[in-house]
């Protein structure tokens, strides 16, 4: 007796390769499936064990590993795995573990083989994928940054020297080994520092030190190290943020190797990293403006590489920060050094590491307390105008709300900024705060970066204890509701092209980041990124555990949809914006979008109850 299982069929029909099957074949497949649930962190397939089914991820997420145990891929709902094993002796080639609670549909091997024969598009899917899987498993260069473990960049054992090695000997060994850096360890194998090519040049030759100087005297000791489980993109970001070129990769206390900027560049030419390097070495505003034209294609590539939204946001933010930083330097070159120290800060999405495309510049200046309007005012006015106009030329349009350094209101002394935040927090006026919430996400870009850190800490301490402030902020966070109707249908507006759509930023990511900001400030977190804020909040008992996952998933979904829509716009040579027409999405995507909006509605309800109950 064959039985109809429309729910099972529907779950598969939106996804490759099942979308290529005729209806009756899909129906037969559905009734031959076995279903299996696995909690997060459980082994689904172990290397070399027999495999008799193709696995379809119905919900949840799995991690697929290579033979050597390194991470190969992460597959969310809608993907299949296990085909390699089925095609090669029915033994598992790529082991799999659940990353989230997951439900699998298992398709029997006979049926799988049968369909590969019978339905060419179905079969092609696996052939194409099998090919690319093999290729990717062998070639490192083809993988994307999010899934490449940094250990793949380590090509040789580290060159180890002792602290009493002379610089001359160290230099010889470095050049003999064609290596960029030597690792200095004590006799217990504890890492003390590293010596690089450029250290030898800058600290020995340029200073005419004797060649028998021990490396102990010249090595870099303030080291940034990373764990062997880090991914390439994480190392890349660390290098970019700290302007460091060599990062030792550690297995606990043991140095596995040193990864250099060159290694990373060689691995990932033509990417965001390269763009950042070009930005930071740019010598004129014109050439910066020229470089900014690469932004869309870098962005397109990031999204295409299936980077997570956190990663896309970070990369775009690093790029945005680099433009600001270099612009400030170039303007300083032109106007002469600043008369008093200052700190250029970025606000909003850039500060949160959540920048996508289509976002105007939001920035401000923290000035030294020695600043005097009459004496220094003219310099900073001119500086700010040139800065903001320059950024405008680089594709960061002027802020309509005038939250920019070029607005005299947002050039303040350190003490004035503290007073300003004190005023916002102690005398909260929801209206005033509506425009000010952006200031509660801030990050240093250039100059006296410490001042921005101080300000973050000041805010975190003060905000936490002010109930009326949190209540006002919460009330504002409730103003933008997700676009769901009473019957869980999408509520659409007409966009510029007379198309019914919804604004996924205004109605999605913005309200969600607002909510997360309130919780973060309430718990005294000084972090700015929404995902990291969630992690921070989760250490308190503010929300039930599963809520963090819900919020993070909703945020990831909304951001990635925004990113994807923008990417498609670039590809189709349209002006990217934040509007999405739900009709253009697959049913599955529509459903998950609704689910994400639903999470926002619930989170807003909680926010109202938690912070505004007595107000």
């Amino acid at each position: 007796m064959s039985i109809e299982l429309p729910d099972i069929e529907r779950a598969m029909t939106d996804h490759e390769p099942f979308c290529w099957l005729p209806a009756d074949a899909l129906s037969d497949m559905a009734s031959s499936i076995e279903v299996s649930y696995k909690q997060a962190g459980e082994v689904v397939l172990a290397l070399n064990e027999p495999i008799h089914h193709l696995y379809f991820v119905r919900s949840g997420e799995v991690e697929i590993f290579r033979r050597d145990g390194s991470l190969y891929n992460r597959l969310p709902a809608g993907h299949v795995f296990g085909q390699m094993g089925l095609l090669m002796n029915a033994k598992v080639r790529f082991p799999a573990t659940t990353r989230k609670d997951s439900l699998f549909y298992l398709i029997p091997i006979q049926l799988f083989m049968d369909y590969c024969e019978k339905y060419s598009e179905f079969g092609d899917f696996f052939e194409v994928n099998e090919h690319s899987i093999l290729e990717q498993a062998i070639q490192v260069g083809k993988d994307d940054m999010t899934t490449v473990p940094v250990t793949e960049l380590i090509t040789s054992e580290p060159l180890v020297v002792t602290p009493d090695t002379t610089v001359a000997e160290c230099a010889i060994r470095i050049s003999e080994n064609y290596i960029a850096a030597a690792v200095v360890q004590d006799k217990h194998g504890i890492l003390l520092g590293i010596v690089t090519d450029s250290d030898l040049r800058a600290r020995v030759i340029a200073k005419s030190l004797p060649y028998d100087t021990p490396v102990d005297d010249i090595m870099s000791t303030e080291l940034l190290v990373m764990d062997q489980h880090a991914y390439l993109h994480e190392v890349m970001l660390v290098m970019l943020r700290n302007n460091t070129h060599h990062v030792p990769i550690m297995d606990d206390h043991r140095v596995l190797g040193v990864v250099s900027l060159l290694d990373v560049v060689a691995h990932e030419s033509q990417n965001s990293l390269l763009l950042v390097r070009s930005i930071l070495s740019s010598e004129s505003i014109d050439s910066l403006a020229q470089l900014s034209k690469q932004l869309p294609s870098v962005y397109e590539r990031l999204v295409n590489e299936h980077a997570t939204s956190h990663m896309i946001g970070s990369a775009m933010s690093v790029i945005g920060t680099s433009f600001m930083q270099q612009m400030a330097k170039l303007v300083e070159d032109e106007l002469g050094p600043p008369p008093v120290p200052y700190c250029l800060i970025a606000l909003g999405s850039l500060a949160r590491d959540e920048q996508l495309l289509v976002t105007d510049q939001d920035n401000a200046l923290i000035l030294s307390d020695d600043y005097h309007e009459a004496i220094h005012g003219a310099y900073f006015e001119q500086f700010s105008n040139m800065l903001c106009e320059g950024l405008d030329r680089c594709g960061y349009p002027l802020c309509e709300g005038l939250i920019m350094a070029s607005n005299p209101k947002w050039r303040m002394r350190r003490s004035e900024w503290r007073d300003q935040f004190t005023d916002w927090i102690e005398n909260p006026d929801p209206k005033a705060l509506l425009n000010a919430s952006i200031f509660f996400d801030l990050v240093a870009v250039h100059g006296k970066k410490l001042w921005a850190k101080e300000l973050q800490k000041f805010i975190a301490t003060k905000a936490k204890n002010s109930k009326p402030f949190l209540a006002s902020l919460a009330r504002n966070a409730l103003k933008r509701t997700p676009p769901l109707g009473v019957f869980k249908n999408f509520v659409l507006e007409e966009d510029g092209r007379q198309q019914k759509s919804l604004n996924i930023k205004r109605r999605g990511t913005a309200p969600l980041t607002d909510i997360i900001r309130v919780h973060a400030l309430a718990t005294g977190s000084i972090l700015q990124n929404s995902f990291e804020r969630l992690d921070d909040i989760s250490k308190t008992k503010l929300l039930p555990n599963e809520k963090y996952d819900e919020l993070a998933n909703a945020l990831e979904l909304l951001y990635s949809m925004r990113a994807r829509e923008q990417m498609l716009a670039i590809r189709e040579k349209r002006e990217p914006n934040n509007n999405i027409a739900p009709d253009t999405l697959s049913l599955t995507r529509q459903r998950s979008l609704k689910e994400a909006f639903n999470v926002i509605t619930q989170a807003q309800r909680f926010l109202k109850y938690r912070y505004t109950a007595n107000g």
Partner: protein
Amino acid sequence: MDNRLKERGYAPKVWAEFQQSMSGSRQQDLKRFYQAGFGYMDEKLNDAPCLAIDIETTGLNPEQDKIVSVGLVEFDSARVYLPTAKYWLVNPGELSDTSIVVHGITHSDVSSAPTIDSIMPELLDAMAGRLCVVHYRAMEREFFRKLGFALWSQPWLFPVIDTFALEASCLTHSQRWFNRLLGKPLPSLRLPDTRLRYHLPEYENHNALVDAIATAELLQAQMQKWRLGDRCVKELCQ
């Protein structure tokens, strides 16, 4: 016969004795069902052959309402076996006007369907020797009790694992003592809501078969989360 077996909510204290007493039934189908026995009662839940079952009815009152569909699927701790899935629409006989449409099942759908007594042999065979799993046992138990007396003048009762009750008891045990003290209510135990807590996907359509599959998936999830696999079925049954 023990008259309490007719009472709503009553279940035999010792299932093995009850099964013994029923094995001699003169009803051949029922006799086969009871002769297959409840052997799984002494096994670990991990090893027990299970059968998720769900019914849809014209209403909640077993005295006057009728079964309109039955869905079931075999499963165990590792897999839910969709090839074993079975689904029947049942002709309830006369339908009052108010219940013309039940869960999308229309009068014309069921008017041509078999009556419940004609599917009984196949239903009983599918259930024989398997541990039945339901979500909210009052429905199946009372409707089947009633059915047993209506068809054969005999009680048709069997042990079940109730994922609804299981969820309630697991949640109560894991609830912090002060919440328990404060009498904090448990979250919703409805099937879709309970499934969400295990990150199980939503099903759009509800019919007896989809809900049976959903229940089977839920028990797998509950077994993993609360480590029930090594527990003896007897301890978890009702």
